């Protein structure tokens, strides 16, 4: 339960309220599976769960992308290289990347939801031949809120990957797609009889995305989402993250929609 303190190597300002911390790996070597998270401790302020956004193949550093939301994340924004943070983890059930082998993989990300999905793409692209079509559908509020633009541009340049990006609100300099990310699903080139979808973003976006994927005849057992609830302990003790009968921290955050049993539609859960 005690955090291990590590040193910040670099801080990358991604967007106005979003930044990436690259830090030494706890214990010198940090292994994780895509979709897992850490509990990040800011001295004297508190702990927050943060999804790991780095490459699982790079074990000598830990990469976390953080959105500034409250007291703890605000405290993390003033960190500089050389400062220390406390880290616990990795925790949680990861994206079932192995289940996508031999199938089309549809990755649907909304806003900062691309951060916990980036490790999936790193892993899949490092073993590209194991998958059929690899498709990234990414939506954000506006062009200046698109995360990891450099990488998205690189991925778009690949001939073995489909990348479709849209924004809810365009601006005069934007010449791309305007509309919600769910609208990309109709055009996404995947075979619903042999596909798996990983979805991460605001919960409302995930609900609409699930419906759009199902309208393409993708069964709910093949749709995985990343749930978010208040997490305190991260190890299934405090109960703050309960989602119906499930603990998001250790039975999630990744859930199959087939497992969820329509919990998404139950108010106050």
């Amino acid at each position: 339960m005690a955090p291990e303190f590590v040193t910040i190597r670099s801080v990358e300002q991604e967007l106005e309220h979003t930044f990436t911390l690259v830090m030494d790996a706890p214990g010198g070597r940090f292994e994780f599976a895509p979709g897992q998270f850490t509990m990040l401790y800011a001295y004297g302020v508190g702990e927050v769960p943060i999804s790991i956004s780095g490459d699982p193949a790079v074990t000598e550093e830990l990469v976390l992308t953080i959105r500034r939301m409250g007291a703890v994340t605000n405290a993390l924004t003033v960190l500089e290289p050389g400062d220390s943070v406390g880290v616990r983890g990795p925790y949680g059930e990861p994206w079932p990347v192995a289940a996508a082998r031999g199938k089309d993989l549809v990755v649907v990300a909304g806003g900062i939801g691309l951060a916990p999905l980036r490790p999936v793409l790193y892993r899949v692209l490092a073993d590209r031949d194991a998958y059929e079509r690899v498709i990234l559908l990414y939506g954000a509020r506006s062009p200046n809120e698109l995360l990891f633009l450099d990488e998205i541009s690189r991925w778009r340049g690949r001939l073995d990957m489909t990348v479709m990006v849209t924004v809810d609100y365009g601006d005069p300099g934007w010449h791309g797609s305007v509309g919600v990310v769910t609208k990309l699903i109709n055009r996404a080139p995947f075979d619903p009889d042999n596909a798996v979808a990983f979805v991460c973003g605001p919960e409302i976006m995930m609900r609409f995305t699930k419906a759009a994927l199902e309208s393409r005849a993708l069964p709910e057992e093949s749709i995985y989402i990343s749930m978010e609830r208040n997490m305190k302990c991260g190890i299934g003790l405090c109960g703050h993250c309960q989602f119906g009968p499930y603990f998001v921290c250790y039975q999630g955050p990744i859930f199959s929609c087939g497992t969820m049993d329509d919990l998404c539609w139950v108010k106050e859960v």
Partner: protein
Amino acid sequence: MSAVFELLGDHPFFYGMSEEHLQVVVDCASPVDFEQGETIFHEGRAADACFLILEGDIALEIDPPGKGKHVIQTLHNGDILGWSWLFPPYRWTFDAQALSETRAIRFDASALRAAKEADPAFGYDLLTRFTEVLVRRMQAARLQLMDVYAADR
């Protein structure tokens, strides 16, 4: 059976339409091409057609004075463009511009309206299909309005 008949019969928007009704649609149809940057229709002008986009990207825009054009939505391969032709005053609500070279099927609005008045069964079938498109676009618009990424700011 013409190439347009086969193309429309295979398109999801017209799935299940009877051959008789599909022929009515085909009789109102003609292929069109738009160059990148070409204006397809202007806000306020007569809504004399609707389009099935075969290949390309279209921007629906509004042009408030002094603020420059604002793209409210883009449409792409397989999308239906235009429903202002369905109800009076049959005027376009927005501008539409081709963002890329675009191939489409244009359906003459006057002919479609006459056909659906003459054959209520055809009219019902056609309106049911357009209603489904309208419902999806409205749901998408509501999702946009919810500004679900606002917490990201």
